[in-house]
């Protein structure tokens, strides 16, 4: 039940749901600033979000406490996952894994 709540948390992001999820994944291995997040997402997902979409998602994630800004370094503000963000990301990935397994199983038996 708790997992459903976490998943719904990202669903509320509307058109920012996909960038929000990819930002969380990008931050899963450590803090990054906006440019590094953009490059990282482009490298593992093949998607390059515009600056407006990226910061729209970052603002939502930060306001919901899923990520937090760190002290600026070299005029750039890195962001890192919070405990809540990590929990939400784990829940979302687990949910996606279930859907992927079901899909693959059905395709295999089709």
């Amino acid at each position, binding site marked *: 039940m708790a997992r459903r709540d976490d998943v719904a948390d990202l669903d509320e992001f509307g058109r920012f749901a996909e960038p929000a999820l990819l930002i969380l994944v990008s931050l899963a291995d450590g803090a990054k600033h906006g440019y590094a997040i953009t490059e990282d997402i482009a490298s593992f997902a093949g998607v390059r979000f515009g600056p407006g979409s990226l910061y729209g998602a970052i603002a*939502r994630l930060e306001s919901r406490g899923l990520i937090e800004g760190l002290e600026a370094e070299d005029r750039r503000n890195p962001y890192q996952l919070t405990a809540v963000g990590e929990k939400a990301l784990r829940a979302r990935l687990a949910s996606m894994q279930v859907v992927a397994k079901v899909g693959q199983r059905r395709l295999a038996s089709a």
Partner: protein
Amino acid sequence: MTWLIRLYPPAWRRRYGRELAELIATQPASFGTAIDLVAGAVDAWFNPQSSTAATAADAKGAGTMLPRMLQLRCAGHGPNVTAEDTRKAALVMLGGTLALVLALMWGRVRYGGGPYFDSLLAVSWLVPTVLSQRYTSLKGRSNRVQAVLIGGQAVIVIAIALAAAWFNTVI
């Protein structure tokens, strides 16, 4: 292209403006980036985020996590729209559309119609929808902000409709 950051709300610019400018500077200027920034600015005005709220960095332990999540969920949910607000918004949308359609139909009969009446009829549902934002996405905003945003959108919708009608008459 960093001048487009001026379209964002002041509080948003104070929080993210410098970072956004840095990111824009790393990308080649393009029409797509401009559209993305304008869309982001519109979103920032209509869906203000409470990014200045306390983050979950101090949420250590399961005992504090759930209350923190619930608190943040409410804080980030935008205006507190009640069922009554939803009813009011629906009433404005339906009643406004009906009133506008009737008024424009009367105008067509009275003045013989034409492309301008037809064009306004086509957007007669859109203007009340814009007005209904007073009870939904713009709830809690000051009267001045509501007037500027709702009035601005309504003027743009009507201007586009009239421009389309004019274009139709000259081609």
